[in-house]
């Protein structure tokens, strides 16, 4: 069984050492997903697997047989931008842009987690629905580092889009 990447079937690599990240970048030339630390510390390689955010650098591609992977390239519909991509532009949510694809995929996965009620480290009450306050967003996005210091713009972009949808 292949892996589905942005809706297209992709053969599993022959070498089980190939990470999902390297399959995407080197095998499929989907270079939107970035290799930052390659050890699970920075979040630049974040992609969505069946809607859940994971780190593609720590994922062996062979483990994802039959799963559906969405990368930054798979978010937009045709030539238009995903609303969160546009919001990153509107809020200056990046400078160099290297962490951006991971930030955006992570935020989409984060919103899905919040929608189904997953609490966070800063949730005062584990039993209530999630309210995506700024503090909650900062905690939930803490696995994605931005060395340019664009975190405030990133949080603003997320608040205006995927977090706002949750509150509505």
């Amino acid at each position, binding site marked *: 069984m292949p892996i589905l990447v942005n809706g297209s079937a992709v053969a599993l690599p022959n*070498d089980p*050492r190939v990470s999902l990240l390297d399959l995407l970048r080197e095998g499929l030339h989907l270079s939107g997903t970035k290799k930052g630390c390659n050890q*699970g510390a920075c979040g630049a390689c974040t992609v969505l697997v069946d809607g859940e955010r994971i*780190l593609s650098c720590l994922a062996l591609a*062979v483990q994802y047989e039959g799963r559906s992977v969405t990368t930054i390239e798979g978010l937009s519909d045709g030539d238009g931008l995903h609303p969160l991509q546009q919001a990153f532009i509107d809020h200056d949510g990046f400078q160099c842009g290297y962490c951006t694809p991971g930030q955006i995929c*992570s935020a989409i996965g984060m919103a899905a987690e919040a929608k189904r*009620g*997953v*609490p966070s480290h800063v949730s005062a009450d584990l039993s209530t629905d999630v309210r995506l306050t700024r503090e909650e967003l900062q905690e939930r996005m803490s*696995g994605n580092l931005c060395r340019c210091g664009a975190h405030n713009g990133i949080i603003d972009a997320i608040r205006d889009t995927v977090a706002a949808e949750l509150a509505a």
Partner: protein
Amino acid sequence: MTPFSYARANNAAEALQLGRGGAANYLGGGTNLVDLMRETIAKPDRLVDVTGLSDAITDTADDGLLIGAAVRNTALAEHPAVRTRYPMLSRAILAGASAQIRNMATVGGNLLQRTRCTYFYDTDGSRCNKRVPGSGCDAVGGFTRIHAVLGASPACVATHPSDMCVALAALDAVVHVEGAGGARTLSFGDLHRLPGDRPELDTVLEVGELITAIELPPLPFAASSTYRKVRDRASYAFALISVAAAIDVVDGEIRDVRLALGGVAHKPWRATTAEALLRGRPATEAAFRDAAIAELADARPLRDNGFKIELAKRTIVAVLGDLSGATA
């Protein structure tokens, strides 16, 4: 990474079969093992993917919980029964790593993750008895802010990195394992080892033995338990000190208490000395302080981590105070 073969197991029996012989490793979410392989610290010739084992969370006959080894960390933290009956476990998991890693990491893998001692990871520049048995330890005499103050040995001063395991220690979890000799259960406190002169062994598991499930015994007063983690930044960092606690106070007297510490030792540290002192005592800050002092009485600082001893005491007092509503 050195070359290896890969096979997926659909259940424990298949995993044991596939894992037999040679230098096989069981693979969960890969969040630690893949990194260790990339650093050539782990060099298995075969990976047996055990994410196909049970990912169910079910009630046991005595109102405890049985958690399959392949349950993802996020799934365990968000489960309604864990959030209401064992909140310290939800809180411990949510205090660890990042959301992406929690989505990948399995329960079984969390138990078997290796230390984040920087000397263990420094394959080019440092000696490490855990990485290369008998080679020496450059952490001793080195930079030791994150290292152990309890139960360490001259051979190893590393700490166990898991948050989840601190809560499991406090909750008296039972570890279900299967191996060539059949199935057995281990009390959680017996799973991980102190380093002694064999720091390369993190646990008492035999070669090829597989964790299949974790069982939480019923503990009604854990419904108001918690986990507090003190670290160098607000999120996504390993613990300097952490405390998992539950306390049962009736008419101002401590009927029962559970207490475990993270960041202090080679294993999750169940604070049995403090627990024994607290049972039957009034729930006051003075009692908490006495118990914390007794628990840390054997603590030994290294060059840079003496602060952990007082920090552990204060965190114990603060957490027990918050849980019990005690005043000074």
